[in-house]
């Protein structure tokens, strides 16, 4: 029997682009395009099985070995620091993690800075390196609302084009780190399926040169 490689793909637009890369690399799986209620899709001949999961869960599936490889945003990898191999920068879904605030914001260093974010660890790490005293406000969505309503002074969030910020009189203030999608692998899987995972990595690496 052929060794099957389990691939966790992030649901959504990014995941579709990622699947297109896998398809182009020769790991196609026609059933994935059919509109069905199935959860896993496999092409036994190519030895590959795909499944869609919530983007923030990809790293968990891979770290725990339910998926051998997967594609996750660098933001998720930085936030949860899963114990996985980061094999490739796919150059997809490029954006940046940034501090943003009202366009007229000036940092009053006499006060504790209130930071609203989904990415608690990234924000804490960033400000602790600057030795800035902050108050973290963990939100799960609509982060941009926080400075507008005075819930926080600034936000730490993903900025793609900056349009949403602009429309709300907000502006990116500092870039923390550039973000893009990464090919990750479970460490133990890599040991036992080295040849298969390497082959996928290399076939996809050929395409990332075009992306970057």
């Amino acid at each position, binding site marked *: 029997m052929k060794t099957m490689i389990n691939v966790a793909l992030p649901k959504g637009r990014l995941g579709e682009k990622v699947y297109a890369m896998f398809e182009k690399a020769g790991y196609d799986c026609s059933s994935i395009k059919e509109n069905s209620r199935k959860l896993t899709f496999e092409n036994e001949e190519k030895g590959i099985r795909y499944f869609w999961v919530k983007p923030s869960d990809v790293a968990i599936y891979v770290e725990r*070995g339910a998926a051998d490889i997967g594609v996750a945003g660098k933001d998720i990898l930085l936030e949860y620091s899963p*114990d996985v191999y*980061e*094999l490739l*920068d796919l150059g997809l879904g490029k954006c940046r993690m940034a501090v943003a605030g009202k366009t007229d914001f000036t940092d009053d260093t006499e006060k504790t800075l209130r930071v609203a974010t989904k990415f608690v660890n990234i924000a804490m790490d960033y400000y602790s390196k600057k030795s800035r005293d902050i108050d973290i406000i963990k939100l799960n969505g609509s982060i941009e609302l926080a400075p507008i309503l005075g819930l926080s002074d600034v936000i730490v969030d993903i900025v793609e084009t900056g349009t949403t910020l602009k429309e709300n009189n907000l502006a990116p203030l500092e870039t923390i780190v550039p973000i893009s999608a990464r090919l990750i692998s479970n*460490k133990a899987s*890599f*040991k*036992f399926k080295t040849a298969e995972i390497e082959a996928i990595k290399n076939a996809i690496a050929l395409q990332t040169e075009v992306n970057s």
Partner: protein
Amino acid sequence: MTFNKDVIKNDEKAIFALRSLYQKYGYKQYKMSKFEEYDLYARNKDFLVSDGVITFTDGGKLMALKPDVTLSIIKNSQDGALTKVYYNENVYRVSKGSHSFKEIMQTGLECIGDIDTYNICEVVMLAIESLMAISSDFVLDISHMGLISDILSEVTDDNSLKNKIIKCLGEKNFHEIKALCQSAGISSDTLELVTSVYGKGDEVIAKLKEADLSDGMLAHLAELESLNSFLKENGLSDNVNFDFSIACDMKYYSSIVFKGYIKGIAESVLSGGQYGKLLTRMGKKSDAIGFAVYLDMLERLNEQSKKYDVDTLLLYDDSADTAALAKNIKLLTDIGTSVLAVKQIPDIKYKQLLKFNGKGVEILENND
């Protein structure tokens, strides 16, 4: 004593197998108390795998439930004579997922004293045999922190950059190493080589030899080479890879480090190395090498869902004669079935349901 081998769990089997393996090579069991003064861990915080330690005060002294065994063994070791010990202890660590404390059964060994090539080879061999005792499908990855440290020192003396690179090396993340080196204006050639080479010892060593290495690096490479030939001569090299992504803390590890994986378990089950620098930090002159096996991981190995909780459920009522009942139960257990005697049917899965009718048993239900 005879018993049914099926009742022994993976981790229990491993404990017995490993104990006899280590004793065979003259290692003595080291039994210790569950507590240690907290100070020991506070001073060597980075050596611990997880951050949290359970503490309590005992007569004004801050004590801790052991999160680690090695530190205690080293603390009590004497300089001079070679000491070989193994242990089988519970340690208390914060589990990554739930952020709560877990009790983890750990077994391992330490070889402390004037460590020579033979000692290194013996410990690595025992690591391989430990994995073999658990499963035939395993991989041991070996790396060398001295070599990595020299390569890093050659390109930079910025410690924070070094740590960032080591982290990336551990992730096989060359794209980020390249970016780090580019922004620092240093060459990433040798780093690219150590990130990308892995596999059989012969291949890795041959590739490294082609690179432009300093005398210090070559000396480290020679250590890997002698270990590699030892493993080959003893027929132990089949499941061994050289892989520099096994990167450990340079503050403690100075030389050979290794990690073991077993097919079917998502994390490493064995981890060890030569940690002479820890002893130097603790004011001792000796060197040491050792490893730990995480037995709690074995729970998930070769999982077979249990079909029945018990083979036979035996019903009896108040009128039953105790002696006769016991005799019938004995007859059943003697033929190898497990028997649960109850008055009312509990909510469990059973293979067959029997009723004790005063003289013998009658079958009420058979699910097999």
